[in-house]
């Protein structure tokens, strides 16, 4: 029956629709501050028309579906920018802690400690025989060393703090991946396109994705109406519909990937640590160990470029067993060796040495891929690795920034020690030696001093040259014999050879204890050292001011620390005498302040600067890194802010708008109700006609 009934029907539909519209508006108003909530609206459609006289007649309104206002395209851009923003935010925050370490005010800091150190050498130059000038110098030197060490320790602390942050981030990422997969599942179950939109679930997933992209860089691809595939920017799949893949933060390890025709059956192993990743590739096939072992080239960027030695030739290391393990270049302490090999290494066999903890992507439980962020030689990010989010910031901070600062601080410490020791070891203090033990240790005293096998930290700084010794009569103090000269060629002479040469001199004996060279004068004699163009004394730590070779272990030579008379201020003069008023060595050391010396680091190559300038440039590095992080953070923050605003233009709730809608829908509701009462009155009118 058409007629009044249809009017009632139209009214009913209108009432229902207005009510739903009011509910939607109400939900919008209620969720005005809910993070991640996107504005909904009710899609209305006209009801099906019926053909009758006088023609097609509408059947009212139908509430079709609740639409979520959201721009997927903007969201995609937003995620990309946000991941960069988070990366720089994490860097900025951490770098600010480093900046504090390098903040040199007028009265404190390493810069000041170093300036005071030089000043006190000048002061000692004025009063070389003064005990108080000597102890003041020792105090200042100790202060300088403490400052270096604290800076290095704090850097190390920040570095290990990063491991905790990374661990938490990886856990959270895994959690998010699981939730995203689960949400995908629910969306699939509940969603019916065009009818039942899983709006709340979509919002939830969207929030999860935003959270995930804060941690790492992701790509989100739509599949079908609502299903998604989440991958890293590099392409490793993280979530595929209802499936998700795990990430793991794992400790240092090494892998092999053999070429197709290789029979190699051994393993690679290593000790020590580094902030670099090493890739070794067999360059010349051969056995492990033996007379002609295989040679491997070394890369720090996954095999894109191979390291060269100082003369520009390809740098190779030999495949050796544990007993003859090889030191890897450009690392504080990192050695590799091969185990359990019965077959030859074939050309092209590759080995990855990951001497630090990293994050891995598990494709299956047995197959994993290293996705630890890594910069390439040209400064860009490795495209096969993570490159965004807080994880990249934290890894970058840990491995590149801190690693770089520590490397520079180490180089600074080593050069400071070396240059001071070089001059100090050729000088003489207020006392001569009856015996002196070198503080620097060699691993193998039979190998040439400069060879890696000798394991002498400063061995490669030695030159061919000669060293002079003077022997004095202990009771009279008169010169007995001198100068006596030994020649040293670090490329052929071992520590044992040096000891033998010294034993050939009159009134002098030398012996080796635990890899350290001891030089003694015979009974009734004492000795002093003259010029040493080879650097042997400084290299072996004999008659030196400092001992140690990096920021952590640089210390005062125990001999000097316990007896300040052994601080060299003088030089054995042309008459073979050492005089207390002689200040030449002290002045030479003080002049180091303004002398350019040579520095070499992996990241910067060779530079010639004064020690002060070098340290100051390290401060500037920290400053400019922080400023760069600040700038980038600000830049990406503006971009994400902008994109977020564009998203909110679509999805944000405007209360005024909702108020207007509220009134609009309310009025529609009132009108619909009026329609029904009108129909009812019509009905009543009809019924009264009968009476």
């Amino acid at each position: 029956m058409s007629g009044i009934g249809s009017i009632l029907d139209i009214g009913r539909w209108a009432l229902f629709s207005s009510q739903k519209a009011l509910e939607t508006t109400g939900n919008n108003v209620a969720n005005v501050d809910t993070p991640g909530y996107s504005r909904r609206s009710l899609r209305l459609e006209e009801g099906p028309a019926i053909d009758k006289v006088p023609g097609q007649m509408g059947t009212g309104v139908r509430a079709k579906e609740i639409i979520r206002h959201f721009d997927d395209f903007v969201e995609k851009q937003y995620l990309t920018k946000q991941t960069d923003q988070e990366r720089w935010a994490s860097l900025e925050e951490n770098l600010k802690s480093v900046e504090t370490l390098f903040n040199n005010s007028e009265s404190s800091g390493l810069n000041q400690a170093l300036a005071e150190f030089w000043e006190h050498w000048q002061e000692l130059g004025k009063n070389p025989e003064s005990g108080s000038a000597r102890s003041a110098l020792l105090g200042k030197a100790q202060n300088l060393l403490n400052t270096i060490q604290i800076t290095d320790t704090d850097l190390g602390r920040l570095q290990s703090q990063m491991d905790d942050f990374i661990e938490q981030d990886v856990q959270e990422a895994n959690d998010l991946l699981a939730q995203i997969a689960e949400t995908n599942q629910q969306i699939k179950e509940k969603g019916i396109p065009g009818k039942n939109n899983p709006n709340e679930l979509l919002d939830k997933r969207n929030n999860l994705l935003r959270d995930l992209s804060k941690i790492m860089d992701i790509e989100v691809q739509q599949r079908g109406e609502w299903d998604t595939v989440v991958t890293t920017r590099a392409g490793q799949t993280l979530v595929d519909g209802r499936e998700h893949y795990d990430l793991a933060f794992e400790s240092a390890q090494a892998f092999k990937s053999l070429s197709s025709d290789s029979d190699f059956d051994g393993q690679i192993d290593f000790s020590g640590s580094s902030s670099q990743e090493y890739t070794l590739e067999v360059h010349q096939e051969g056995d492990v160990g033996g007379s002609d072992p295989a040679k491997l080239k070394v890369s720090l960027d996954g095999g894109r470029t191979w390291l060269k030695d100082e003369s520009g030739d390809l740098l190779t290391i030999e495949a050796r067993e544990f007993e003859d393990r090889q030191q890897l270049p450009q690392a504080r302490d990192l050695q590799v060796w091969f185990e359990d090999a019965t077959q030859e290494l074939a050309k092209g066999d590759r080995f990855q040495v990951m001497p630090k903890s990293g994050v891995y992507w598990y494709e299956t439980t047995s197959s994993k891929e290293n996705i630890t962020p890594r910069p390439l030689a040209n400064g860009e990010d490795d495209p096969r690795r993570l490159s965004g989010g807080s994880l990249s910031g934290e890894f970058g901070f840990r491995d590149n920034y801190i690693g770089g600062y520590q490397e520079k601080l180490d180089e600074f410490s080593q050069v400071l020690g070396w240059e001071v020791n070089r001059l100090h070891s050729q000088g003489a203090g207020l006392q001569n030696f009856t015996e002196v033990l070198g503080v620097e240790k060699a691993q193998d005293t039979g190998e040439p001093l400069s060879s890696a096998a000798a394991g002498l930290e400063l061995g490669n700084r030695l030159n061919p040259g000669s060293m002079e010794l003077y022997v004095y009569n202990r009771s009279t103090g008169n010169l007995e014999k001198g100068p006596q000269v030994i020649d040293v060629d670090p490329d052929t002479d071992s520590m044992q050879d040096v000891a033998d040469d010294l034993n050939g001199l009159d009134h002098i004996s030398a012996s080796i204890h635990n890899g350290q060279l001891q030089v003694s004068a015979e009974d009734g004699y004492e000795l002093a050292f003259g010029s040493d163009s080879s650097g042997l004394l400084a290299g072996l730590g004999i008659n030196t001011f400092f001992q140690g070779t990096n920021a952590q272990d640089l210390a005062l030579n125990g001999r000097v620390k316990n007896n300040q008379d052994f601080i060299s201020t003088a030089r054995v003069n042309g008459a073979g005498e050492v005089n207390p008023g002689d200040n030449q060595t002290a002045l030479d050391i003080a002049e180091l302040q303004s002398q350019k010396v040579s520095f070499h680091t992996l990241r910067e190559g060779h530079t010639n600067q004064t020690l002060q300038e070098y340290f100051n440039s390290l401060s500037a590095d920290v400053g400019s890194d922080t400023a760069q992080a600040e700038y980038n953070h600000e830049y990406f923050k503006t971009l994400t802010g902008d994109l977020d605003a564009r998203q909110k233009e679509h999805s944000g709730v405007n209360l005024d708008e909702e108020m207007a809608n509220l009134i609009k829908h309310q009025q529609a509701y009132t009108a619909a109700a009026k329609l029904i009462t009108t129909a009812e009155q019509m009905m009543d009118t009809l019924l009264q006609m009968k009476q």
Partner: protein
Amino acid sequence: MRVAHNMLFDSYIRQLNQSTTKLQNLSQQASTQKKVNRPADNPVGMSRILNYRDSISALQKFQDNISGANNKLGLTDKTLQQTQDMLTRSKELAVQAANETYSKENRESISKELHQIFDQVLAQANTMYEGQSIFAGHKVQDQAYTRGLAVSSNKTQETSLGHEMDLVTPYVQDIEGESNNSIRVEFSDSGTIGQDDIDYRYSTDGGDSYTDKTMSSGDTDLDLGEVTLRMHEGFKVDGDTELELYPTAIYQGDDQNKPGVEILNKFDTLVEPQQGSFDSEVQVRVTDVDGGDVEYEYSLDQGEKWSDKLYTNVSAGEATLHLPGGEVRLEELSGSSTDLEDLEFTLGGTHVQQLNTENLQTVAVGDFTDKVLVRVDEDVDLENDAEIKYSYSTDQGRSWEEGNTAENPTAQDEYAELVVPGGKLKLTHTTEKDIQAGDQFSIQPRQAGIDTEISQGVRLQQNLLGPEVFGGHYKNPEGLEPAFESEPQKNLFLGLGKLITALEQNDREGIQAGLQHVDGAIEQVSNMQASTGARLNRLESTEKVLSDLEMSEKERKGNIEDVDFAELMSQLTQQRTIYQAVLKSSSMIMRMSLVDYI
């Protein structure tokens, strides 16, 4: 554009944050008065600020050094002035005493006053600054001079330069014992000390009374009562030879001169400079060799005039040649020693230590102030190769100046001259003719100067050495040698000693000679005063330069680091206005809503 309510609030908060951050930055600048407060504020600026700070602290240190050097040199200057005053007084006294009318007693009493003056000058020479002897070189802990006796004779010879050489000087080994008065020794026999019996007499009271003595052959000591004069064998005396022992001061400090040897007439003999302090070039030649006896002569004027013949003998393959200023030992002589004949060499320059090579003949000539290492870079056969390629290092081998070449004359009696900072290294071959690449030589001048750094890389010697001011004598195990062996009139103590002797001996001619000595000493001390004055002037001007430099460095640092207060204040005001505007506009819009109107 649609505006969501959250966008509005987000942007209020962002704007407020931006505004407060800027305000906070400005207020930090206001409180520190610096615009660079942490490295990231201006990374390059920070590094430059640190560099400026370092250079300012170095400049301050240099100024500190200068004030120290000023004190030391000021004291030196004052000491020299007082010495000069005493010398002037000595001169007055000498002029008085030279007066013919003065009696022996008058002169004796003047000699008493001169003794006083001598002691006072000695005290000046031993001046200490903060417990350090200022004229003793590096041996600051001891007194520079002690009292002693020296010998002169009437056997002298004039050099072409007009100076007198005293022929007894090379023969004096030591004087033991002390005497307040001068001692006069007269020989009455002819003969050679150590070979003949010789009669002599001595007087310790100015010739009033004499004691007779005889010296037997084989004996070289002269017994003079409380004093024993030890001689080397070989001094020839005759009936009119007279010796005078006069007071002098013995230098105990550090000295600068230890010569290398340049052999002119080539031999494979090793000539090693030994004890002594040669402050001028001494040329020596062996004129005759008879069995173990060696006859030689020396010249202090580049061979113009030669001394009387001196004698020594060879024992155990060694011979010691006594010379004024010290001794030279010849080593590894063959038994017959005939190969010594015609040996000719020059003492002078700086001794060179041959490091990886030996048995080349080397000497360094020049004015070296610091140690120089020389390295030969390509193998050289000194007999055939015309060129020597070498490098040198002035910083103990830390860095090498490479790519130098020297011509090699190849002949054995000519030297290749390798030019290095401060002078040149001369070398030629002996039995050894090859130098390997990498062989090194070290030139080590004997230094006694105490330097201080007065500006970057510039050092100034802040001490004078006793002998260059006061002269006196050096004592070596093998001899007693005067300073200024070729120019004795510069020797202050020697002059005073001789003057005192002449007065005690009532020797008018001696007084005249002593007067000349004092004049010479006055001139030498003025020269030294001039050199001290020049250094003081240099300190003064350097200090001025340094303080100007410090000012300008501070200014440049300030330009980067310090805030412009006026600019900062206007920025602060501006920022405050902005902040207020943000507060006002946002609070106004925040309160508005459609709800209020329905």
